[in-house]
């Protein structure tokens, strides 16, 4: 079953999602990857205002290709998430409820997700051409000098993701693999 969810994402909805759930996200999300996360966390450390409202936000780890004429955005698939592990707990503490990426996450991120009620979604890596079809608009809200790594506000419609790690710490990378291996033994 596919769940339709909206962004911004409340803690209540984030907590209701379970690892393995397929979801379609509609609404407003933000992009940030390595360099932008570093800057955001420097602002948090200094106690300064962030360039977007982190409360209930979903952040997509992506650096898109430039849009061709007529496109809202270029190819835009997820980047590997563990490089954001040093930064994600700070944003989760500030109310971020969702992250979209791919790949494993560290214990500190998962602990923060459990404590504050956040969820980690996976989008299919290497499918940037397909995923860009669900992004209806993109505008830079901060760090334009970073090029592909700038923070962008995206309007998405039925953006397909799978819950990889939920707010209880259940992890699809463990359960999915086990389910497949068990199916081989039957």
């Amino acid at each position, binding site marked *: 079953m596919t769940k339709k969810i909206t962004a911004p994402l409340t803690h209540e909805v984030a907590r209701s999602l379970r690892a393995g759930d397929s979801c379609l996200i509609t609404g407003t999300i933000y992009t940030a990857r390595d*360099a932008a996360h570093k800057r955001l966390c420097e602002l948090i450390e200094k106690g300064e205002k962030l360039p977007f409202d982190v409360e209930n936000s979903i952040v997509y780890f*992506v*650096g*898109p*290709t*430039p*849009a*061709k004429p007529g*496109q809202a955005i*270029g*190819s*835009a*698939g997820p*980047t*590997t998430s*563990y490089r954001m592990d040093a930064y994600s707990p700070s944003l989760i503490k500030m109310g971020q409820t969702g992250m979209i990426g*791919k*790949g*494993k996450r560290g214990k500190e991120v998962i602990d923060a997700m459990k404590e504050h009620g956040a969820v980690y979604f*996976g989008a*299919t*890596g*290497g*499918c*940037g*051409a*397909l995923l*860009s*079809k669900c992004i209806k608009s993109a505008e830079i809200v901060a760090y334009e000098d*970073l*090029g*592909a*790594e700038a923070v962008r506000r995206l309007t998405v419609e039925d953006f*397909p993701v*799978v819950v990889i790690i939920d707010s209880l710490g259940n992890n*699809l*990378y463990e359960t*999915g*693999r*086990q*389910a*497949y*291996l068990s*199916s*081989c033994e039957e």
Partner: protein
Amino acid sequence: MRNIHAEEITKIVRKLCIEANCHLTEDLKSCIAACRAAEPFPVAQGILDQIIENYQIADQQSVPVCQDTGMACVFVDVGQEVHIEGSLENAIHEGVRQGYQDGYLRKSVVRDPIDRVNTGDNTPAMIYYNIVPGDQVKITVAPKGFGSENMSQIKMLKPSDGLEGVKAFVLKVVEEAGPNPCPPIVVGVGIGGTFDKAAFMAKKALLRPVDTRHENPFYADLEDELLEKINALGIGPQGFGGKTTALKVNIEACPTHIAGLPVAVNINCHVTRHQSEVI
């Protein structure tokens, strides 16, 4: 002596950068389709369907298959009877600059690994020259994404580790990479040589079409055996479980020192890109 003008090199590199990023090779597409047909796990089938739809969209609309349009790895076989008019090196970088700009490709290169300022045009390219007999120049552009590059490893094994040590290391690298490099992956393995030569062979192995086998039957069998063992791990497409963890293992081997057994594993994702042209 045959004269080739540097401008011609630039034009070809520009074109190959765009083609490689927007169009996967037929051997790879056929391999992905065959793996989809053989995949028994429903979740994995769904992911492979997305991957197929994605490269079809990229083909039809000439847009990048993946947003990580990579570092431009450029392999140049220069015939020793060729004279290049102008700077070959500059011509290649200029081709990358034009290709990444004109092709709406992402600029993903920083000028220094520590200060990390983006060069803004995806240069410099990583260039590998090879002097060969003849009067032709073969240029291969292989954009390399770093989600998979970051999961690559090298190990200086002992001769006593032998074949079993090599197999165990390849499997360890794939296991540790898990879902991170966007499986299904293509695995390039370099065995022998020196520290750097092993890594180079692993990268070069990724250029070989996935519908070929090593010309030496021993290494061809080893490719098959490693692929089977990797696909028994159960990691599956995107790491959500399934049979299709790897599409292909390609091995390159060469002589080495009496004291050494270097093994390098260069991982590539299902977007294994390369395009070539001969001048």
